[in-house]
């Protein structure tokens, strides 16, 4: 594996697959109780306790605007960000995809009507939207 190889953590959200750079992933934990915080955007679900730290959680479905209502899901994908660790509520992590920079097909992005994804990956026929975490997490604060 060349040092340039990016690794993408792939996960599912209902029938769709998304990916984030593995360097941004702190850990993957099973979903636990969430304490809602008032006066936050709808997609900020609240706080959960991960080994003594209170981590804010974001409902990715609502954040991406593809789901209207929040839905109970099985896993929290904890990511690091400038504003501290934050979790995405997802169904399940499926695999880690090794991405050779030469085979990136990310030019496809402009044809998808969102700036929340950097591009679309073809993972053996399955399409995965690679999240632009700066945008997905950036406007939340």
């Amino acid at each position, binding site marked *: 594996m060349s040092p340039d190889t990016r690794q993408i953590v792939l996960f599912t959200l209902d029938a769709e697959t998304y990916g984030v750079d593995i360097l941004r992933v702190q850990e993957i934990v099973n979903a*636990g*109780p*969430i*304490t*809602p*915080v*008032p*006066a*936050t955007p709808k997609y*900020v679900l*609240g*706080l*959960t*306790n991960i*080994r*003594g*730290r*209170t*981590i*804010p959680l*974001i409902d990715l479905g609502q954040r991406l605007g593809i789901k209207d209502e929040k839905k109970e899901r099985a896993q929290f994908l904890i990511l690091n960000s400038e*504003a*501290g660790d*934050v979790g995405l509520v997802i169904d399940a992590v499926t695999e880690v995809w090794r991405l050779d920079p030469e085979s990136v097909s990310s030019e496809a992005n402009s044809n998808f009507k969102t700036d929340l994804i950097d591009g679309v990956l073809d993972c053996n026929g399955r399409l995965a939207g690679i999240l632009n975490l700066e945008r997905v*997490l950036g406007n*939340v*604060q």
Partner: protein
Amino acid sequence: MNAESASNEFLGIYLQEADEQIQIVEGRLSQPELSESDIHEIFRACHTLKGNSRAMEFHNVAQLSHAMEDLLDEVRSGKIAWRSEVAQVLLAGVDALSEGMSLIRSSGSERELITTVPKQIKELLNGRITRPDSSANHWSGELVLDAGVDLKFAKALIAIRVVESNGTLLKTLPTLPEIENEDFGDRIQIEFSSGETDKIAEEISKIAGVVSFEIGPLKETAKPATVPTSQIIDKPTIRVDVNRLDNLMNLVGELVTDRTRLQQSKGQVHAGIHETVDHLERITSDLQDEIMKARLQPLQTVFSRVPRAVRDIAQSLGKEIDLQIMGGETEVDRSVLEVLPDPILHLLRNSIDHGIEDPAERIRLGKSVKGKVTLSAKHQGEQILIAIQDDGRGIDVDRVRTKALELKLVTPAVAQSAPEKECLTWIFEPGFSTASEVSQVSGRGVGMDVVRSNLTKIGGSVDVESFAGKGTRFTLRLPLTLAIIRGLIVGVSDRTVAIPIGSIQETVRITQPDAQTVFGAPAILLRDTPLPLQFLSSPLEIAEQHNEMLSQSQYVVIVQGQNGKVGLVVDKLFGEREIVVKPLSPYCGKPKGFSGATILGDGTVALIADVAGLADLGGN
């Protein structure tokens, strides 16, 4: 490695260490009396700073600290006497070093640092004075007597008389009575001041039985300094990343949670495990205490900057100040420590500027020329008390009344009739300043209100007492830590919220659903006084509770808001707990009425109520 390529991590460590060394130098220099060990500490700090700066290729700072080190080395070896010029030039060096650090912080380089200090030091070293300056002609002589001589004590006393007739005897070692009893070996240390050392040496050498009498400059012996720094700084310490401590704290918190769970299930498991659980309980409690203590730092780190600041302020105002500092060893959580420098310096500035009279006026009043200012700290229960006291003129209450009226802070009736104690609290109102002219040091009307608001923000308070003609005392009360507080855990619908105990006045159970509304806002009569209510369900955005009807099973938690009491309506009371306060993630914004979060015994997260914010909501 040059500055540009130095990784941020190294630079961070360098800056942090440099600040510490500069602080040591400044702290020690600010003491009224310097012991040998102080000089040595300052030397070591300069030496360390020089080495570190060279490694980082900050040549200007390295050169500067090198020069300071050279000067101190001469002082240390007695080649240069300690005097005010030496201290002055070293203090100028401290300023230049600090400037270098801020240049590095802002631009990553200190190339633009311009200082004449190395040149000044060079001049000092060239015009080297090998003897103490004439104003302090203090000497120490070692008298060695022939061990076999008769009437040894008499020879010693003759020698001492020679010293006395040619100067002033300061001290002998052993003491005079011991010498008279011949309770000494063959050596006596004689400390004296005199301008005629040659004559003394000559006369003593003529006494029979005297082997030798060597005179050298008297080295300042350690005198008890007003600032007890040594016992604090000399403890071995290691540097630990604060984040790491926070992580440890989190883990301990989890351990405590597990302990609670184990304890609760004790009844259901084999009896043999009880002992283990009890043991675990003790260990986790101890661990929690220790981790908390690891976050504590002595107030000295703030206090050590005070003498210098006070001297500068006093100088600029043409006043003389006798500053006393006590309780620097008092330890507080670093989160509290960070808030303190500004309020303390501001209050000191205020005391010197407004409290202490001009020297001429003090003489007229029969007071000592030097104004006395005391800064002291101590623990009191779960709080830390810091007092700033002066022996100045006190606060003119009548002027406070007039001024408050001018500023329309109060109605004429209140301005006239309010008791003195209440009047004094007005000085903390925004825009208030009793100085008739705006001065450079204090004044402009900002400050006192900032002092108060900064302290209230961290759960502290400030009181003022004034004694006309005799002085003013400000007392700051601060929590020991911001990380752990006692909270009342309450339930609203299916949510749990922690309310800081400090802000709760009482809790009452609703006996009859007699809520009324005033201008549409709910209120009840509590002991014949109307009490506005705030349903906690509303700031929590619990939709189904919006009918806002009191039921008999509910409780009212009465808290003190900024504009009076407010009753928070909750469903359940779960009791008091110690809770670890965690700030809200930026992702959660700043929800009005809640200031943080905590993790409860069952591992779930609960929000911590911000009473002032909730009370404000109630007023709407």
